[in-house]
């Protein structure tokens, strides 16, 4: 391993600009003559718009324009769409309601935009927005997904507010498994609704050049090409070749910046109307009511076991709240990203899952770090843990008894696991966590009046999203391959243009490590270019822990082509047969001779083209590839959480956290560990602190960082992180992906630990001090008896 090659903990290239304040985020981009947009948003969860009076606003100082939903509709700007078709059990297609970027007739959640005010300055736009008078006729609303089916119908297309009633698996076979069971564990689970809260608020800056009829959008996107495709093909703002989307530095995404949002559509439309660049940057209170939320499942789940604790079957019934409109990929999250992972790491013969997706008068819900897989892991890992406790089996033992040990393994819910060693990660985690010493620590805690608990989460996820044919057959509207272009310059330095997008993941470093090792050139001589549709050929973006497994695989394929072409050039230079040229450590040699040419010389010769004729070989050294994976990848591992609960206050402190993950090949262990840390923090946030509360009228009660609790430094411990490695056979580097693991594993580990400590399973997330204290009071009589 070289100091900067694959496996080296190289410091990040991108850090220099971020630690010196030189990052260029969307709000930092300033265009000549730019104006600022402020949206007028509904304060009501559901209402009819009777009239919008913009006259007073238009008369305010500095106002450039005030535009409403009626004008957007008159200009025939298309609505936003959900790009993944799900069919109900009865074969009917999902009920996708219209989603105009500015509401013209009805508003369906607090924060739904009805008008936009564009002015010279932010302050002027804000002042003028106050003068927009909207007459609403209030309509009854429903915010609780459990009540959605009996609530007032939100959209004409969706009776009983039902988007789809979907199922996966063989219900009859599962019923037989349950009939044969010696033990059945039943759980009711609420997977709490979360706000992603990337620290950079979403932003959009649109500019129209009438001379070239070209629109440019700078936005906070995880996938600028997909944004361009949707905005062109469905919204119809501009043809694809007349729209450039640039996602510059993006300050965190976690899924929330995958989607196509109303604000970017409106800024593009408005820029053409007011003939000035239009910039919008969300204020945090807007983020809370416009960024797609995550999770929000209500589930009843059951696990059937034989007398030895061997799992016979699993069934689950879930209500998934998708909010007021179907966001870009919302339909796939509680279906193919959720139910397909209900087998966990276990050999479960039969699984059946039903999912009812419903509309409510709340912010749309879509993928948030893990997307479906944290929900699945929570169901599986809580069921297994509780089953072990009910049957008096050690929770590690019940897992070992049920682990899948032979690969490939076909689960009853679509997925074919290709490689893994679940015992290895469990064992390593138990050693690192000193599970053997737990009882001693528990007694020590008891002496201080504290309850200590230990919780496991042996999770699996399907990442490296995804084989295009497979997802196409499941309803995806796009292919999920990735592209790369490797551009070797005449001086031997290299630019890699990738369709993956980095917003914290460090691609500029890890991708360069790959290229540097493969071409034997200095790490410093490699630049990674991403996030601009005018520069990068095409790309599907970054989500679903796919940039390593899919994005880097595309680079590998392009590098293969570069090497093949360079060998041809070298053959001409060295006057040898192409088949005799070997490439190693940045040097081309003729086998069995001492004749060689350095990579840089070959690059130069490829461009000057003095050694070969155009008939023999095309000049240049630049190759493109599109890589489509053959399977998902299956990162898996074991997280062990140890907590101490204060019986007086119910406050939980995480005293130990051990994570052992199998991510396949690791390119940069420092970055991978960072991804694990961040994922755990978000998972712990879900388990202990975060939770969206809507009141019954659809008002968002947790609508600011004063009321929605984000994990802070003192809420978390330092983490013990280790890895095991089985390489993924489904991509050339053997990478599995690491971005979501922590968020997927953590919630179950925390709740398993607290319920172990307090001796009661009746605990909802977030397990705040109040929630735990209340559970302790309920558990007390049982403990005393």
């Amino acid at each position, binding site marked *: 391993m070289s100091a900067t090659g694959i496996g080296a903990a190289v*410091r*990040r290239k*991108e*850090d*220099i*600009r*971020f*630690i*010196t*304040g*030189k*990052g*260029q*985020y969307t*709000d*930092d981009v*300033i265009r000549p003559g730019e104006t600022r947009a402020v949206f007028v948003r509904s304060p009501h969860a559901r209402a009819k718009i009777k009239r919008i009076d913009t006259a007073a606003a238009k008369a305010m100082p500095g106002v450039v324009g005030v535009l409403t939903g009626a004008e957007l509709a008159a200009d025939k700007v298309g609505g936003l769409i959900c790009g993944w078709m799900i069919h109900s059990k009865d074969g009917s297609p999902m009920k996708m309601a219209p989603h105009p970027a500015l509401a013209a007739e009805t508003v369906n959640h607090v924060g739904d935009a009805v008008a936009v005010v564009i002015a010279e300055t*932010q*302050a002027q736009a804000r002042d003028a927005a106050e003068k927009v008078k909207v007459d609403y006729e209030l309509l009854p609303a429903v915010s609780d997904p459990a009540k959605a089916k009996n609530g007032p119908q939100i959209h004409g297309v969706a009776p009983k507010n039902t988007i789809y009633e979907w199922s996966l698996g063989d219900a009859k076979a599962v019923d037989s498994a349950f009939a044969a069971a010696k033990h059945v564990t039943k759980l009711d689970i609420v997977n709490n609704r979360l706000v*992603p*809260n*990337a*620290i*950079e*608020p979403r932003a959009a800056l649109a500019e129209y050049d009438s001379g070239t009829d070209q629109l440019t959008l700078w936005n906070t996107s995880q996938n600028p090409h997909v944004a361009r495709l949707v905005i062109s093909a469905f919204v119809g703002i501009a043809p694809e070749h007349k729209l450039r989307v640039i996602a510059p*530095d*993006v*300050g*965190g995404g*976690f899924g929330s910046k995958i989607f196509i949002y109303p604000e970017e559509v409106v800024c593009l439309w408005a820029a053409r109307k007011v003939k000035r660049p239009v910039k919008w*940057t969300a*204020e*945090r*209170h807007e983020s809370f009511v416009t960024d797609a939320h995550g999770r929000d499942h209500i589930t009843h789940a059951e696990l059937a076991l034989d007398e030895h604790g061997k799992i016979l079957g699993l069934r689950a019934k879930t209500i998934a709240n998708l909010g007021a409109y179907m966001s870009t990929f919302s339909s796939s999250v509680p279906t193919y990203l959720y139910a397909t992972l209900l087998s966990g790491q276990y050999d479960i013969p039969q699984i059946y899952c039903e999912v009812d997706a419903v509309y409510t008068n709340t912010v749309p819900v879509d993928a948030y770090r893990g997307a479906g897989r944290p929900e699945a892991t929570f169901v599986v890992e809580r069921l297994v843990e509780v089953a072990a406790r009910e049957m008096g089996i050690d929770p590690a033992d019940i897992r070992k008894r049920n682990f899948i040990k032979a690969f490939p393994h076909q689960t009853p819910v679509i997925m074919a696991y290709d490689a893994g060693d679940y015992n290895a990660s469990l064992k390593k985690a138990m050693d690192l966590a000193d599970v053997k010493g737990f009882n001693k620590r528990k007694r020590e805690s008891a002496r201080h009046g504290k309850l200590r608990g230990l919780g496991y989460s042996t999770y699996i996820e399907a990442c490296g999203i995804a084989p295009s044919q497979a997802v196409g057959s499941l309803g995806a509207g796009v292919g999920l391959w990735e592209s790369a272009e490797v551009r070797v310059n005449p001086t031997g330095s290299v630019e890699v243009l990738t369709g993956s997008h980095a*917003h*914290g*993941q*460090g691609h500029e470093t890890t991708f360069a490590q790959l290229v540097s090792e493969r071409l034997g050139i200095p790490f410093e001589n490699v630049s990674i270019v991403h996030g601009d549709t005018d520069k990068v050929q095409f790309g599907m973006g970054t989500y679903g822990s796919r940039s390593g497994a899919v994005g880097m695989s595309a680079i590998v394929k392009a590098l293969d082509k570069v090497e093949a072409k360079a060998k041809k050039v070298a053959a001409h230079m060295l006057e040898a047969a192409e088949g005799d040229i070997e490439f190693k450590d940045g040097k081309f040699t003729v086998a069995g001779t001492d004749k060689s040419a350095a990579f840089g010389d070959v690059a130069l010769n490829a461009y000057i083209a003095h050694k070969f004729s155009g008939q023999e070989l095309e000049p240049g050294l630049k190759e493109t590839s599109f890589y489509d994976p053959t399977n998902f990848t299956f990162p898996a591992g074991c997280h062990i959480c140890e907590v101490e609960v204060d019986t007086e206050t119910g406050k939980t402190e995480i005293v130990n956290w051990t994570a052992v993950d199998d991510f396949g090949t690791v390119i940069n262990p*420092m*970055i991978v*560990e*960072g991804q694990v*840390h*961040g*994922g*755990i*923090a*978000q998972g712990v946030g879900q388990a202990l602190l975060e939770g969206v509360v809507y009141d019954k009228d659809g008002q968002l009660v947790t609508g*600011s*960082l*004063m009321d929605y609790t*984000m*994990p*802070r*430094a*003192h809420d*978390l411990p*330092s*983490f013990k992180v280790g890895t095991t490695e089985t390489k993924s056979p489904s991509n050339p580097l053997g990478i599995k992906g690491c971005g979501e693991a*922590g968020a997927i594993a953590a919630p179950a580990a925390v709740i398993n630990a607290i319920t172990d400590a307090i001796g009661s399973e009746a605990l909802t997330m977030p397990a705040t001090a109040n929630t735990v204290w209340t559970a302790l009071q309920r558990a007390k009589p049982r403990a005393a008896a």
Partner: protein
Amino acid sequence: MPAVSMTVNGKPVSGEVEARTLLVQFLRENLRLTGTHVGCDTSQCGACVVHINGIAAKSCTTLALQCEGATITTIEGLAAADGTLHPMQEAFRDNHGLQCGYCTPGMIMSALDIVRRNGNELDEHTIREQLDGNICRCTGYHNIVKAIAAGAKTMAR
């Protein structure tokens, strides 16, 4: 509009601002110092932390006019004139104390204030407690805590 003058990163600056203009707006919009970020509207996240007369403050909750005559340091003013990074900046890079980079300027400015208040030998508990005013959504804080401890030590040299 009222005028305001202050010293920012060692340079005297002045400008005309509305009475309601926040320091962060003055820095970002008037001076084009976009390293100071805005992450929230309730003084919770700390992405906007700068130093006013040597003390960390949230520039989203400070009026530009309040800073008349003040000495302001932003993230852009930490490195030496020749580009040599401040030890705390180096420590964040060495310890992978940042991912998306958005909270980082505020984190570094707060970290320096933690050192000012508590000295160069910082234990994990102190750092975690005193980082209460800054939110990072990416790192889980693990490496930020390490970076601050390491940076504080190097600063003593």
